[in-house]
């Protein structure tokens, strides 16, 4: 990871930092055909770099030289290397050596008024760190190079100056690049651009942010046809996708950037927590393991404890402090906490004052804490790549193995953890594919390009489809997007006179007035946050609230607050809080003295179980020879399942039916992750209803799905009235899916994001700022109007595509239905099976998935009726 090498500057001495910049001094195997650097005189550093390296007693590393040599031939390159390999310096060497050879550009020449190198990172903190850390070598070698950052925090005056008098190297974020290319100065600013360096490329490309960045890159290539790209990445499942992303695509050939892969260092040492306690059947709290986790904290210098959700973090933190008899400094870190509080934790960590930090994914990227000697992962890791990344937080030296302990919260998670360990040992990677470029993102980009200068639609189409996520974009869709940007793209053409962009007689599209450009600048970006409210502490005296309230504690999602009524208690910021109410845009809370919060708020599995891990879990269950690695209570459980029912096989679907408490249950074990199971549950209940089984509800976990009904589904299957082949036919993803989707709240939420990104709804209007709430309300109404009047509108198309990809996991469900076709095993049981126990326990805990109900209203109205009649 590029920035791990740099970011540690604050925690170690400068010389230690420089060592990090260079990468550790141990030998690194390079998986390329080139010989080691020292044996190949063709790969050498120019002065003053050679002397500078020598003065430190360093050898340039083979991949650094190879990257230099490859880029010298004009190629764009992808460098895949693990933490600590000196990846970032490698990325900058081509640019720095070129700048050193060029010398100071003559005033008035193109070079003097244009950027030479762009460095783009997903985090602004990273850009700032890199600036600080590049400064020293540049200074020591007296290179004629000016380096600056540009982020959302850069003052307006400096930004303006950067446009007229740009530095040689600009370190920035994707959003800033989009702003720069939408500017009238873009042509001059980028005319001399030679290199674009993308740090942490693997974390960028699978998102809409990556889509927008790919479009920006396409524009940069047009402005500076000679530019070369350098991608820096951690190990990924499909490096070819990244190689494609880095270079322009054409309809006829598959263009790829070159690739250099540095092999990983020592294998991490990962174990599953050994506990004397009984591992629970279900749940996500891992409460049983708290004393053992506490003991491991005591046994290590500094422990990072990762969990999957914010509420898990809160719970674990509280439980650890409950038994923290030694008063160890244990801190909490998650994205909803107040930024100042997070900075304090980070600073304390930097000073090595903490023994443990309980954290969510906020720490997946970003800060490097050198002295961490153990990573504890609570809950299942959900994906091998995520696990590898998190484990990478400990011990950033390639030659020393990282140490990690996995702590499963329930029995299925034991299986998952074991599968993840096996995966990590074989170096499996399961990063998600980038996917097709979002149409909402394209709309935003098109408006930006019009803001930069008038464009010809043919040219822009060619440019856009040279970006790999948009290589498959057809012309008709592209034209629809232009119409959308101009007037909303409605069949009813009533907004022509209000068009934002217009085709001029010269054939070029041009913005109608300067305000359009201003509007674009205010609303750029693809990161849409759920509406959040500030949580503010207030005190209560004699049962009433006093004053305006105390310090802010952080932010919490509005939808969570909607489930609370005043007086409810919940966990936040490591405290049990009493919800007092919402005042304007703030959530007022007071200190509660309860032992346990009333509202547990388990916010579901945020991450789906990755396809790769799911397959490994299925394989492990199906093969008793692999059970040796599992704790006895887990292998006993599987053995019991074998006797009572049967084990789910790797390539088939096991369906169990059994009666229980006057209802009839059907439990499936697809192991495809909660999202796919929820979608399957929705579709199955629809079908079962049609087939007369009278389904009542369902519940889904990452591993299984349970449906319950009034009719005996087991009997229906056994006597042939219910055909399983037909029930699970792939055609359920056709009409049933469409019918369900159209009334689903999930689609509304997705629509809101698409509407904001595409510019249909503004985040901010010049002079006004909309609160999240206002956007939510109007987006829902717009969705309803649009769906009833123009169901084929381009934005609804974009919304459906998004939902299918992310929220519903349609792709995965489709692959599953295909895989199990003709391989469905049904077991009609008298009683619940051992494997079904976990999901049956979830039933009470998880709300039954469904839509907002009229029935809730009816029930409330009954109250009034009852009152009136009494």
């Amino acid at each position: 990871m590029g920035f791990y090498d740099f970011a540690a500057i604050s925690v170690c001495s400068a010389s230690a930092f420089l060592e990090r910049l260079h990468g550790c001094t141990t030998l690194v195997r390079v998986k390329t055909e080139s010989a080691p650097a020292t044996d190949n005189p063709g790969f050498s550093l120019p002065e003053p770099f050679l002397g500078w390296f020598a003065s430190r007693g360093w050898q340039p590393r083979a991949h650094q030289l190879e990257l230099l040599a490859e880029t010298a031939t004009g190629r764009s390159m992808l460098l895949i290397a693990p933490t600590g390999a000196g990846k970032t310096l490698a990325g900058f060497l081509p640019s720095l050596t070129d700048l050193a050879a060029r010398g100071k550009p003559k005033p008035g020449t193109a070079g003097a008024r244009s950027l030479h190198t762009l460095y783009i990172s997903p985090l602004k903190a990273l850009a700032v760190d890199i600036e600080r850390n590049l400064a020293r070598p540049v200074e020591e070698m007296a290179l004629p190079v000016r380096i600056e950052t540009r982020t959302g925090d850069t003052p307006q005056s400096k930004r303006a100056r950067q446009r007229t008098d740009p530095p040689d190297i600009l370190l920035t974020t994707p959003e800033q690049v989009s702003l720069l290319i939408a500017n009238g100065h873009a042509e001059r600013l980028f005319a001399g651009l030679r290199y674009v360096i993308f740090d942490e490329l693997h974390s960028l490309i699978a998102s809409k942010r990556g889509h927008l960045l790919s479009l920006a890159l396409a524009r940069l290539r047009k402005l500076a046809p000679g530019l070369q790209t350098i991608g820096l990445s951690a190990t990924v499942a499909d490096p070819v996708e990244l190689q494609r992303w880095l270079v322009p695509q054409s309809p006829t050939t598959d263009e790829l950037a070159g690739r250099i892969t540095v092999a990983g260092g020592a294998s991490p040492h990962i174990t599953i927590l050994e506990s004397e306690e009984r591992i629970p059947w279900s749940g996500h709290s891992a409460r049983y393991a708290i004393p053992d986790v506490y003991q491991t904290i005591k046994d290590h210098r500094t422990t990072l404890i990762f969990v999957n959700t914010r509420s898990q973090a809160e719970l674990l933190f509280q439980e650890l402090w409950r038994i923290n008899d030694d008063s160890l400094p244990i801190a909490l870190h998650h994205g909803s906490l107040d930024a100042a509080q997070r900075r304090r934790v980070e600073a304390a960590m930097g000073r090595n004052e903490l023994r443990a930090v309980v954290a969510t994914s906020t720490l997946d990227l970003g800060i490097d804490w050198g002295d961490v000697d153990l990573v504890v992962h609570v809950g299942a890791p959900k994906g091998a790549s995520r696990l590898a990344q998190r484990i990478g937080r400990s011990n950033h030296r390639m030659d020393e193995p990282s140490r990690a302990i996995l702590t499963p919260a329930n029995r299925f998670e034991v299986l998952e953890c074991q599968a993840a360990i096996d995966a990590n040992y074989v170096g499996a990677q399961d990063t998600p594919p980038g996917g097709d470029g979002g149409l909402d993102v394209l709309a935003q980009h098109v408006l930006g390009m019009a803001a930069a200068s008038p464009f010809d639609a043919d040219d822009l189409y060619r440019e856009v489809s040279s970006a790999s996520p948009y290589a498959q974009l057809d012309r008709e869709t592209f034209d629809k997007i232009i119409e959308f940007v101009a007037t909303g793209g409605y069949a009813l053409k009533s907004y022509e006179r209000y068009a934002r962009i217009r085709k001029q007689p010269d054939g070029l599209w041009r913005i109608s007035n300067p305000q359009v450009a201003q509007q674009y600048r205010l609303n750029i970006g693809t990161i849409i946050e759920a509406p959040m409210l500030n949580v503010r502490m207030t005190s209560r005296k004699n049962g009433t609230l006093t004053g305006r309230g105390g310090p802010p504690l952080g932010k919490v999602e509005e939808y969570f607050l909607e489930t609370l009524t005043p007086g409810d208690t919940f966990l936040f910021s490591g405290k049990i809080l009493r919800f007092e109410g919402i005042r304007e845009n703030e959530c007022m809370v007071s200190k509660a003295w309860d032992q346990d919060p009333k509202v547990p708020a388990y916010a579901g599995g945020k991450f789906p179980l990755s396809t790769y891990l799911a397959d490994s879990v299925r394989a492990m269950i199906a093969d008793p020879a692999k059970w040796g690695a599992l704790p006895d209570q887990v292998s006993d459980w599987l053995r019991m399942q074998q006797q009572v029912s049967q084990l789910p096989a790797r390539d088939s679907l096991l369906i169990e039916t059994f009666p229980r408490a006057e209802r009839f249950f059907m439990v499936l074990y697809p192991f495809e992750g909660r999202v796919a199971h929820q979608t399957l549950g929705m579709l199955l209940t629809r079908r079962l209803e049609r087939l007369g089984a009278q389904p009542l509800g369902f519940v889904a976990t990452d591993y299984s799905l349970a449906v319950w009904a009034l009719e005996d589904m087991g009997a229906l299957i056994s006597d042939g009235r219910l055909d399983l082949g037909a029930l699970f036919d792939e055609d359920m993803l056709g009409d049933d899916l469409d019918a369900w989707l159209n009334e689903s709240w999930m689609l509304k939420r997705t629509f809101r994001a698409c509407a904001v990104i595409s510019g249909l709804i503004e985040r901010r209007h010049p002079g006004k700022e909309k609160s999240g709430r206002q956007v939510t309300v109007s987006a829902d109404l717009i969705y309803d109007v649009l769906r009833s009047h123009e169901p084929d509108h381009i934005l609804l198309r974009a919304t459906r595509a998004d939902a299918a990809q992310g929220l519903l996991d349609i792709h995965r469900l489709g692959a599953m239905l295909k895989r199990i076709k003709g391989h469905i095993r049904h077991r009609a049981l008298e009683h619940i099976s051992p494997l079904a126990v976990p999901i049956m326990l979830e039933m009470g805990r998880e709300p039954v998935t469904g839509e907002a109900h009229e029935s809730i209203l009816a029930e409330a109205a009954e109250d009034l009726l009852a009152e009136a009649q009494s």
Partner: protein
Amino acid sequence: MHGANAALTIETPASVPLTVDVTVNGTGVVCDSAGVAWLPGSGVLVVSDLHLEKGAAFARRGMMLPPYDTAATLARLAAAIARYNPRLVISLGDSFHDRTGSAHLPECYREQLQALQHGRQWTWIEGNHDPDRPVGLEGDFCNELHVETLIFRHEPKPGVTDGEVAGHLHPAARVVRRGKGVRRPCFASDGKRLLMPAFGSTTGGLELRHPAMRGLFDRTQLVAHLIGKERIYSVAFNRMNG
């Protein structure tokens, strides 16, 4: 929702209340799930906050919202008028989303409105979005109107104003039962005052707990009549959360 929801469905009586009769300051008012109020004693139909041409108003500012809101609102209004055949229609302010809305109203909508006005009286109450008389349309224009024991104006006046029927605030109520919340536009009345839901197709809502609602109602008497799918649900304010 089908299977998942079925467990929660409650058997409703065969005849569900499409309307609810309330008494406001002694006058009988029918709250209709179509979002209109009907005064049977005087043959008056009341609608509030039509916000016609809201989409166009946004489009003028560069946000291309769907241009279907006016047509949808007018179609619903036409259905309500057809059902009651009122002597007088009161449009309780914010009939148009902005000042230029009525002047720029596309001809097809203008003709539709004129047809609705034909053969009956029509009163436009002045609203904060549309402080001027609508351009090119029939009807009286005023800021207040008295009918029976009621007084109609757009913005509710703070303090006790018996018999006031107002709009402006777009009232909505949130009902929570068994951990699930449902939010709907509503009529709100404590027997003295009536707040009308917004009728326009793309209008949002403001909850009864919002500070802007403070002091308007005697909350111990306040009942929200929530607009559901083809029926009205009446819930007492103090029972919103169960």
